[in-house]
């Protein structure tokens, strides 16, 4: 038996997962969330990339899609290798298709 806190709304239901049986959810969104968590848990990550000769020391970045939870640290390792040394705009792609996961790393902000 596994217990997960639903993150869909602030109620934070403690949903119970027992093999294929999901219980203690209070809405359909909660059930869908628990199913997704059971089969393929995904997360977005946000972090920063080192900036060289720009007006800020770091540029905040994020992924444009969620990635499988177990790939988080592999993706972070790739992001750590990057440097930004020219002007970047909010939403601009900094690195395409990271680790062939079909997700892009994009800038959260415009930095000159």
């Amino acid at each position, binding site marked *: 038996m596994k217990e997960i806190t639903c993150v869909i709304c602030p109620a934070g239901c403690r949903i119970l997962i027992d093999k294929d049986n999901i219980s203690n959810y209070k809405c359909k969104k909660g059930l869908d969330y628990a199913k997704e968590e059971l089969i393929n848990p995904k997360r977005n990550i946000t972090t920063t990339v080192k900036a060289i000769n720009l007006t800020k020391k770091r540029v*905040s970045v994020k992924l444009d899609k969620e990635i499988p939870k177990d790939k988080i640290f592999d993706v972070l390792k790739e992001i750590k290798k990057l440097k930004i040394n020219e002007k970047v705009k909010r939403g601009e792609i900094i690195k395409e298709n990271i680790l062939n996961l079909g997700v892009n790393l994009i800038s959260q902000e415009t930095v000159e």
Partner: protein
Amino acid sequence: MVRLNNFDLAIIGGGPAGLFLAKEAKKKGLNTIIFDREERLGGILKQCIHTGFGVEIYNKDMTGPELIEELMEEVLNLGVPYYTKSMCVGFENNKLYFYSPKGIIELSSNYYAFSLGARERARGSLFIEGSRPSGIFTAGFAQYITNILGLKIGEKIAILGSGDIGLIMARRLTLEGMKVIGVFEIMPYYGGLPRNIRQCLEDFEIPLYLSHTILKIEGEERLEKIYVSQVDENLKSVGLIKEFNVDALLFSVGLIPEIDILRKYLLINNKTLGPIVNQYFLTNIPNTFVIGNSLIIFDLVDKAMKSSLNVLDYILKKRKRDLEEVKVIQGNLIRNFVPQILIKDGEKTKIYFRVKEPIFNKEVILRENEKILSKKKFRALYPAEMSEIEIDTNLIDKNEIIIEVI
């Protein structure tokens, strides 16, 4: 000295609440101006690189820098003038004074809205014994060091307090390759939102120690060790003392509204630690409003932004003077709330409140004596969340109403 005159509304503090109010005020034709003491507008959101912002106002899940950049573009496109690196240092005879790169600025405006944000409670407010080594940070400052400066605060980290900033930082530092050995919370329940417990702690198997606190801090120059113990229902230390070797410790033990510049004039509420206001966030100082976290600590940025429009509502509607005032009194299980005063102007309004402890399947009511004026049911409500209840000021007969959980 630079003299700035003839403004309708001056906003002091260009964070999300201040910028949002500036945007909406300008759209309504008010001659508006913004001041901020930092080099860049945006306030604390500049360093909040996680998502969860803008859901209510922009209908999308944004990060702090994304929301601020979008909001700033809107404000600047509307042509709202702003002064950065300008620190408010005085408020005399209905004029504000700033230190700025242009020298001293003297400002006069019909209305003033202060959106000064909040300060973090630090080690000094907790009376933990031990030495004073380096390596001890408030969670928000650690966030600044990590996200803005890009520096590493330590290797093995402990976090005291389970407020949202501490939880967000637990995840952030883990992603940066640091080891977070645990989050210690003196209360028997956590202080942050349930979803942050899930996404920030459970996802990374970071232990949460409820009913635990730090008794002693040890370290010559750098922090070396903390001593942790369980506490009983009176929050007194009981049982074994555990030792943890850490080189950094974060305090995430609450925020306090920042209103220092107004302190000598303002009436302060001893629960919010912000000013006493009416439903338009008008303080006891004529034509002076306080909004955002300098009024009351909000749970969500969107709420701090949206509620700032109460100010605009007041300015735009010409109100009769000398309307009757009603006091709102704190009742059962309510931790704090705004407004504390309602003007009986015949309009509907909202009271924003927090509960003292988690409640399940209960009602929050507004009543005068035994007559219930408004009620709202909650399946679950945590102290971390701010909620709101509506009230029609027409329904009030007495000069006092009570807000409470039943």
